[in-house]
């Protein structure tokens, strides 16, 4: 960055810079009452100052932890920034977390205030507030449904802003004093990890780390204040914090908040962002939705789509990456662009996308190629909460589906003898909150942080390549490598398969649990006149298992070509009677499989897969959205799949 980052080392300083440099450019937008409302940097800054003063008046002290919960909206982003201005530490929480999950985090960090979006969140906090020590007040944004609540400890954000906008030299002085006290080493945010491995840990990040890492990323892809993005990912996720807050503030880019989760797709089309960040499941879902619609299209449209998509697959990536492509192929691609690619991108909301990122999980090569061949500059990056996300990123002309890029400025990588990736970065976390043991286990005294991922530097490209979570990689009894995620991603590429869990560590062979994708399979069922009333009924349909069997065998065939992975072929599988659900603790809120937990919970099913039985009876506890619990009973049939010989030997 050209600006001296030694000076701009805190969020308040960045905000002041943005006001003076881009004062009248849009900073935040939100669709409200059907219209996009805009706030410039000047206006946003005024709101943040008012909010800061209001919060001081409310009694928020320096060093207090303030929970921020709700869907993405400017007032909550301002709340994060206001907390940072007054020396309090914002703790964003997942809005769909149930009350007990919130209780764990709120009591762990000893939050004294919460700023929440709506009645739903207020209800959850009120439910647990008696058990939270030192918890004081709640501030809410949307007053709907809260009319009759006891307002003693409940404040509307409008009132807080009102208090802050009053003329009070005392508050002004106090705010100024507090802002001046915020330095690069002050805690910027406390982010809780999604907790693939049990209880989530609080990652303490300083202003310097956050701004350092996001600055490096901004520089890597030359973000400017003309960029604009859609903020729709959970605010509690480190990715959204880095992109919407840190990178947005760093570059002066405009943050657009959708009306709500259901309207995200429509709002995406309306905004047509220049930068878009989506985790692999989203890219998967979008592609599935495209293919479902094409399935329903008329013959001619379908034929045109298939024809031009095949062409895009052939030359699309070469054109995007500015390699040599023949004139005729180029012309054909232009025609395809006019007829298919451009309208498709427009439908998806990606007409103006300059850079699209995917991160958070491995992504299948097929999926990756699909978007790139359309001309969408989808790139991978790799990182984690502890590193303020950014460790490696891909350059525009060196994009590969099986690697995740080179270390960005300020990051140093090294591979431990165990194969685990270690790093040293400006964005490294300070510590796990109130957990020195975990801190010292992860970060050594020289500052090297263990990622928990196994990987290596690819020799051809010089980029980092991730294999799997270090502790998930195992061995079959035969000694062959067992890398579950690699196989699961191959399975999940089929639109019909939503989720897959592979077992096989220290066993004779591999087996799998599958979850069907209700959208894709439901569409298929509708076409084939198969009636069903629930997920469970559709999942247990024998024709559905036949389709899945074909998918599994295709994956087996592909694995058979790879000498390292051929041992991971799936001999038996079953279709689970329920969808894996974060409410039941089976996957994280960011949709990562919690392997150990599933292994334990479905112990009976796993052992049935390793027995000779053709079916298994099971009873499973489920948690409903309102927190009640119930039981699901089912008889699941076990399907055998064909195993293929390693193909090198055959040829």
């Amino acid at each position, binding site marked *: 960055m050209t600006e001296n980052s030694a000076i701009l080392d805190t969020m308040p300083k960045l905000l002041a810079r943005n006001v003076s440099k881009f004062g009248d450019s849009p900073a935040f937008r939100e669709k409200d009452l*059907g219209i996009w409302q805009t706030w410039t940097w000047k206006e946003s800054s005024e709101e943040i100052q008012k909010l800061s003063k209001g919060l001081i008046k409310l009694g928020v002290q320096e060093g207090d932890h303030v929970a921020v919960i709700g869907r993405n909206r400017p007032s909550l982003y301002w709340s994060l920034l206001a907390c940072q201005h007054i020396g309090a530490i914002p703790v964003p929480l997942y809005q769909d977390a149930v009350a007990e999950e919130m209780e764990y985090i709120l009591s762990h960090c000893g939050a004294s205030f919460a700023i929440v979006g709506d009645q739903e969140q207020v209800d959850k906090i009120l439910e647990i507030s008696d058990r939270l020590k030192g918890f004081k007040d709640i501030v809410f944004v949307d007053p*709907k*449904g809260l*009319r*009759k609540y006891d307002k003693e400890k409940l404040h509307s954000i409008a009132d807080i802003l009102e208090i802050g906008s009053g003329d009070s030299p005392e508050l002004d002085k106090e705010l100024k004093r507090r802002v001046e006290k915020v330095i690069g080493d002050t805690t910027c945010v406390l982010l809780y990890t999604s907790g693939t491995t049990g209880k989530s840990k609080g990652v303490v990040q300083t202003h310097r780390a956050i701004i350092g890492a996001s600055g490096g990323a901004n520089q890597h892809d030359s973000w400017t204040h003309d960029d604009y993005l859609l903020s729709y990912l959970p605010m509690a996720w480190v990715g959204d914090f880095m992109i919407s807050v840190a990178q947005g503030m760093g570059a002066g880019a405009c943050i657009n908040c959708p*009306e*709500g989760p*259901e*309207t995200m797709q*429509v709002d995406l089309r309306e905004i047509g962002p220049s930068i878009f960040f989506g985790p692999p499941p989203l890219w998967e879902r979008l592609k599935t939705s495209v293919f479902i619609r094409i399935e329903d299209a008329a013959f001619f449209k379908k034929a045109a789509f298939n024809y031009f998509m095949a062409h895009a697959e052939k030359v699309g990536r070469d054109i995007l990456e500015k390699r040599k492509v023949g004139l005729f192929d180029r012309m054909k691609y232009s025609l395809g662009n006019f007829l298919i690619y451009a309208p498709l991108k427009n439908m998806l909301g990606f007409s103006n996308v300059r850079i699209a990122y995917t991160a958070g999980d491995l992504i299948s090569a097929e999926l990756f190629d699909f978007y790139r061949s359309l001309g969408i500059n989808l790139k991978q990056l790799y990182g984690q909460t502890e590193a303020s996300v950014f460790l490696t990123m891909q350059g525009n002309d060196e994009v590969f589906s099986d690697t995740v890029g080179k270390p960005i400025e300020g990051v140093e990588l090294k591979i431990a003898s165990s194969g685990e990736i270690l790093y040293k970065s400006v964005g490294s976390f300070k510590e796990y909150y109130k957990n020195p043991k975990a801190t010292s286990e992860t970060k050594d005294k020289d500052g090297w942080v263990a990622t928990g991922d196994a990987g290596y530097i690819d020799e051809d490209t010089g980029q980092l390549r991730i294999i799997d979570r270090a502790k998930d990689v195992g061995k079959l009894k035969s000694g062959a490598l067992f890398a579950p995620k690699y196989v699961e991603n191959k399975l999940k590429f089929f639109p019909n398969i939503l989720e897959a869990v592979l077992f096989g560590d220290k066993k004779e062979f591999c087996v799998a649990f599958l979850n069907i994708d209700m959208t894709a399979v439901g569409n298929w069922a509708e076409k084939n006149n198969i009636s069903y009333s629930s997920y469970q009924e559709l999942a247990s349909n024998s024709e559905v298992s036949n389709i899945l069997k074909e998918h599994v065998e295709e994956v087996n065939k592909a694995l058979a070509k790879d000498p390292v992975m051929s041992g991971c072929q799936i001999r038996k599988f079953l279709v689970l009677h329920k969808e894996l659900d974060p409410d039941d603790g089976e996957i994280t809120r960011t949709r990562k499989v919690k392997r150990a937990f599933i292994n334990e919970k479905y112990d009976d099913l796993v052992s049935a897969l390793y027995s000779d039985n053709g079916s298994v009876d099971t009873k499973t506890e489920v948690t409903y959205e309102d927190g009640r619990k119930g039981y699901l009973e089912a008889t699941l049939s076990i399907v055998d799949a064909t195993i293929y010989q390693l193909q090198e030997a055959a040829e």
Partner: protein
Amino acid sequence: MNEKAPKIMMEVKNINLRFGGVVAIQGVSFDIHEGEIRAIIGPNGAGKSSMLNVINGFYHPQEGEIWFDGQKRPSMEPYEVAKTGIARTFQNIALFKGMTTIENVMTGRQLQMNKNIFWQMLRYGPAIEEEVQHRKRCEEIIDFLEINHIRKTPVGSLPYGLQKRVELARALAMEPNLLLLDEPMAGMNVEEKQDMSRFIVEVNEEFGTTIALIEHDMAVVMDLADRVVVLDYGKLLADGTPKEVQSNQAVIDAYLGVPH
């Protein structure tokens, strides 16, 4: 519940409604207090929907009086009744299927639009100003009922539960004093029913709208309603709080059937 003497918003007195020789309603009287949720229940063919139709002026009873806001109401047509601030939804959804959600909701504002057709055709000046104002109000209702995501979807393609919500939105767009809901939860699943109940309570509390509803789901009625009227074969069987009605032997007999 209501400690101070409640204000009576509407009173029907000794209503008799016949279609030829068929007696639909026979000497029914009850009242609706301002700000309450009043449920009308009864077995099939009890005359519940007929009663709503009488209230909103669609049927004209042969005998009986309707008092509204302390005045005896002359015989009125439905659109005249609508102008007095009574809105309704229908048992079998009556939306404009080819129009979008927002367009349907906007039709609820029709009565409040004053500019004549020429101004409206010009789409300029006062007519546009008026439209913007009304659109804003409709958007607030859309936001309130959480149907933003289907704002521009033709309602014919929406699932049943959402169509019911759009219909409620259209009725609310009239900003009624009295809202008549004919089986707002028929054919809904549990989750949709929960949502709808929440909206009904919120409409009642936030906007202070008086609500009269017909509903078959007893659990819902007992939870929502302040007072309940029970009809059976066109006659008034019981009238009181949910608790009173629930323990009334005549009601139990009518619902469960008794040997004659």
